[in-house]
């Protein structure tokens, strides 16, 4: 009997354990999904920034949380934000607001990973007219708004006035055309012992963030906006020939050796900050790094030069921005947008952009913002953003792959492994079928591109 009793107890044990496990799982889920307490709705917000850029956004979040008591925004700093947002959306547990990068928008919108914001914008009276056109446009995909900007950036030629002066050039007259840029570069260029390069005027591969886009500076397009990749358009080939001319005149290996001695971007050994390269294409953020690592640097900024036979391409600038999106599956999209709308207000935006020391993407800017902004060239960057030659990456879902191909082509021509035409033809040949494939699948799915 006693033996039987034990067996029965044991046989009961298994289902009991299962029940306990299930209960524990259910309870832990309950603990994780705290039932909404009375009081403000908690909106989770994932953002990539750290350091002073993170502090600037935290100040905006705090201002929003203080201003009203219906919504409480919880800001979490997340690295690799675009991958983690992707996984969180796929797993059905995304944050309510995510701070992605501008070039992510097309890809995420195309995959329906982020919600369209048109209705919310209408409700809050947010419209294109309030923004510098290129910055509004980055958030638009196939006619719908999927993201709104946080901080924007445009680029300009940054030049080291001391180095220009030392080369006998007028530091108040930076180069205006590509031809002038080349001539300036040659004057500043210096070799040291054993023929090693010790100083360069300009290097197309430095800093290397827009290697894909030089064609646009020469008036090229990367995509016709519909069905054709235009990687090997004549303007793009011309730009790559210009890049290759630097490898030819200074020597690809010598340039490589020179470059390999540069320190990290965010360090005093940065090529521009340590006066190794005199002229660089850089963004509005560069001022922050100059202040941090080379406060004594005598520098200036001016619109990036254009080919002398294309005066219509003056004021070319690469524009980009960080954006806020509401991921698909967010629990509180309405409350999330209340926060986004606050960031879009002149008050919120100026607090953020001043904190990060960038210009505002909004058309309306307060006098105080201009007067107290630490970057002496902030108006230049804002003006450049209005330029008809503002360049943003093409809004193609396959842009990450296309961009990687262009960067690889840039490497190949800079190392003299391929001719510009060959390299760009290869990109064309590889990407066109991918676009064809993408369009075919999109049609099958019923979302006409």
């Amino acid at each position, binding site marked *: 009997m006693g033996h039987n009793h034990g067996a029965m107890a044991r046989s009961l044990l298994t289902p009991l354990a299962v029940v306990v496990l299930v209960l524990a799982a259910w309870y832990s889920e309950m603990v994780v999904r705290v039932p909404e307490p009375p009081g403000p709705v908690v909106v989770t917000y994932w953002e990539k920034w750290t350091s002073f850029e993170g502090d600037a956004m935290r100040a905006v979040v705090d201002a929003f949380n203080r201003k009203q008591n219906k919504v409480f925004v919880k800001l979490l700093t997340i690295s690799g934000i675009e991958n983690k947002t992707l996984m969180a959306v796929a797993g059905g547990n995304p944050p309510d607001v995510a701070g992605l990068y501008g070039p992510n928008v097309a890809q995420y919108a195309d995959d329906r990973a982020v919600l369209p914001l048109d209705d919310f914008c209408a409700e809050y009276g947010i419209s294109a007219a309030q923004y510098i056109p290129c910055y509004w446009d980055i958030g638009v995909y196939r006619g719908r708004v999927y993201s709104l900007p946080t901080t924007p950036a445009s680029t300009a030629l940054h030049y080291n006035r001391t180095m220009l002066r030392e080369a006998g050039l007028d530091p108040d007259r930076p180069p205006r055309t590509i031809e002038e840029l080349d001539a300036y570069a040659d004057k500043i260029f210096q070799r040291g012992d054993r023929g090693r390069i010790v100083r360069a005027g300009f290097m197309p591969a430095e800093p290397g963030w827009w290697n894909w886009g030089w064609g646009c500076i020469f008036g090229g397009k990367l995509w016709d906006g519909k069905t054709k990749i235009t990687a090997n358009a004549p303007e793009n080939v011309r730009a790559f020939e210009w890049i290759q001319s630097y490898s030819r005149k200074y020597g690809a290996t010598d340039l*490589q050796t020179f470059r390999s001695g540069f320190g990290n971007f965010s360090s005093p050994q940065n090529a521009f900050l340590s006066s190794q390269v005199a002229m660089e294409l850089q963004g509005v953020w560069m001022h922050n790094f100059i202040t941090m690592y080379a406060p004594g640097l005598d520098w200036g900024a001016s619109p990036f030069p254009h080919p002398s036979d294309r005066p219509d391409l003056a004021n070319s600038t690469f524009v980009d921005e960080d954006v806020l999106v509401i991921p698909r599956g967010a629990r509180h999209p309405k409350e999330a947008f209340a926060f986004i709308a606050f960031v879009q207000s002149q008050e919120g935006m100026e607090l953020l952009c001043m904190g990060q020391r960038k210009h505002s993407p909004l058309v309306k800017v307060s006098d105080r913002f201009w007067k107290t902004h630490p970057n002496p060239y902030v108006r230049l960057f804002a003006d450049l953003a209005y330029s008809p030659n503002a360049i943003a990456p093409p809004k193609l879902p396959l842009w990450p792959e296309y961009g990687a191909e262009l960067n690889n082509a840039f490497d190949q021509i800079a190392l003299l492994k391929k001719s510009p035409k060959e390299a760009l033809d290869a990109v064309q040949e590889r990407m066109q079928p991918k676009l064809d494939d993408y369009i075919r699948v999109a049609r099958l799915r019923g979302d006409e591109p």
Partner: protein
Amino acid sequence: MRSQTRTALLFASPWFIGFSLFLAYPVVASLYYSMCDYSVLRPPVWVGMHNFRNLMKDEVFWISLKNTAIYAGMALPLGMATAIALALLLNTKVRGMTIYRTIFFLPSLVPTIPLAVLWLWVFNGEHGILNEVLRRVGLPAPNWLSDTAWSKPALALMALWGAGNAMVIYLAGLQDVPTEMYEAAELDGAGWWARTRNVTLPFLSPVILFNGIMGIIGTLQVFAEPYVMFPGGSPARSTYFYTMYLFDNAFIYHKMGYACAMGWIMFLIILVLTLVALRVSEKHVHYQGG
């Protein structure tokens, strides 16, 4: 008895559940996804062998495979030879040997990312310590990181830093070589090299086989170091390895189905190489008492 089985199963169940959820299910699912057009964000669409056919035509796939094969071809023999040589050296009877063993094992404890960042400085073409030494002794100092011809050898050299793990396994194997064999060989007049060749290595052969197979798996899956040191497989894709293309497809291009197909091809390659290694070893591996 049955209830005992049940209790055993119950106690083992955390492992079963964990294994099924976190290993078996993903493996099976990835096989299914490899035959789908799947972006992670949208439901998968069955496309049959389309991904595999496309891979065969994909130039970058072949470049990444070739890079990986070249790297493995350099890193694997170099790594094994170094580990065996170190193990042999550290198996001699010298005072304070445990300290030497520890010193040679220590580097393999450095985490991957700091290691990669550290080696970026070692390999720096202008100011790197390696080139500084090479220049002093009058050897050419290449641009390890930005010359397409030197980027893969640089990684293979760097991999030697982690030879300590294999070295410890070889050392353990060396303890198993019966001393009477050495005595017999010595009586026959065998020198150090003859003893190593005819006694040590045959006894060590099962360990060499094990380390060889682990090495094949490890080198073919090299990822973290090049991913940190060579963004995008620069320069000109000379360090664009198989796993990097797989990662980009999965998480940057959102082509999870394509990436899964790549994963399964890598699995088949490793499976075939392992079978070949086992087959080749039949003649050369000696198991004690077997």
